């Protein structure tokens, strides 16, 4: 029995949402065998460009006392939150992303611009026809 503090993926297509739960590490996350739900993590940023993470720290500490082990990604998240020291993978991922940004800024910019123009074109196509044009 490997008791873990892990993410359980809920939500729906193209809209992930994680509950932070205590359950056995190798179980299916939607099997209904969750021991306790101790938080949530919303990976999609909201209107204020925030990703919300809620954790019941009292329960977390209790389960850690029972011998539950956080998974890699939960540990990373808690590190970013200040509960744990920052996970080495956070540093590594950050470095990798920075490297990627430096290496291909031109390509990235081009991609972004293409996406923007596409979005604008779509917008124009779906604009309602103005009254002047209609009368003519």
């Amino acid at each position, binding site marked *: 029995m490997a008791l873990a503090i892990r993410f359980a993926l809920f939500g729906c297509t193209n809209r992930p949402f994680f509950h932070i739960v205590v359950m056995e590490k190798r179980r299916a996350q939607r099997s209904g065998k969750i021991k306790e739900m101790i*938080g949530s993590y919303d990976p999609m*940023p909201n209107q*204020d*460009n*925030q*990703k*919300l*993470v*809620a*954790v*019941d*720290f*009292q*329960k977390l500490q209790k389960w850690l006392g029972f011998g539950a082990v956080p998974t890699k990604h939960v540990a990373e*998240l808690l590190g*970013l*939150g*200040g*509960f744990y020291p*920052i996970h080495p993978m*956070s*540093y590594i*991922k*950050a*470095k990798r*992303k*920075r490297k990627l*940004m430096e290496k291909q800024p031109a390509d990235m910019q081009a991609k972004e611009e293409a996406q923007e123009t596409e979005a604008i074109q779509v917008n124009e196509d779906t604009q309602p026809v103005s009254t002047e044009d209609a009368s003519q």
Partner: protein
Amino acid sequence: MAASMKCAWARCLSTILLNSTKHRCQISQPLYASCSNITGDSGNDEIIFRKGEGGTDQTRQEAGPADDTKKHRRDPGKAFTDVRVQKILLRLTGLDLDKVYEYRAAKGAGVAKVALMSDQQLKKVYESASYKALRKLQMPPVLGAREPIDEVLSEDPELEGLNTSKLVFIDISQRVPLKKRTIVVREPNGTLRKASWEERDVTLQKYFPQSGRKIGLPRMFQQDNLECMLDDGKHEYILNRACSQFEIDDPEYIRVTQRTYEHIDGNGKFEDLRSTRHFGPMIFYFTYYKKIDKLLVAFLEEESLEDSLDLVKLYHIVHPSCKSAEKVASMPDATPLEIIRAFAEMDATQKSLVQQAIQTYEKECDSTGSTQLRR
């Protein structure tokens, strides 16, 4: 019969209000979480994200209530919680059972019951209704604007590039007061800091929603819309909604309430708030910022010498170093009119207005042949 019963109870209640310590206005923590500052509740620091000493809670100082004018300007709360001030404000607010128990078309508003009762039973019902009404008249405290939260817990520039959005962490442990909940933010540049007041309010409302609150500023409180509402005369509604929407020390709350009070002052509609929980804070606002002239004139025009005297006494408590306070202290046997006249001569900003009102009051008194204190 009912009218005379009401009169008897009004008089009975006023003695209760004046003398009873049971009904001393207490700022109850469950109702106003912001007031943990004022009651000197140091509490526990946050569970995990402790960073050295201090924080944003002001500890209560032992100093006298209204001594230091500089501290005063920043924190009206200290003067507001003075027992003498509270007593006067409660007296001025009064208790009009009809107004307090006015029918409001709202969800959960019950249908009035009709019952046949003996005189004794009726007395008991009035008594319990009056005690409950006092609770409805509990005043939202007047505090200074809260200090912004500016605490950085950790700087990690090596995390730059990991996220393009902020990560907001909130502690959802059970039985932690809202004000003490830990909320921290990890910025995209790697800084871990405590959440600002605005971020806190929004996040707490998402995870621990309070009824009557919206996330973000309701459109009603935007400047233009607020003016429309004020011109329509909806002062009590605005103040009630502000109370449920904002924390008492929120700069937005202070802006909305102060604008409402100024509008009332401009139109002289002080009686709209009489016997509501906002009358006390309004009087206190005018007294604290030395704008009681129109209010005093309104009381004199109503010919309530008691209220006028109470107002001037309140002014002397809140500003003990003012000239009229010193003069009145030197005349222990002054009549109420003499005290009010002293204030008008020395501390009134619109001297002529107040003095004229005093003269008019004296004429009315002489014409009716009575110089006694009148209600």
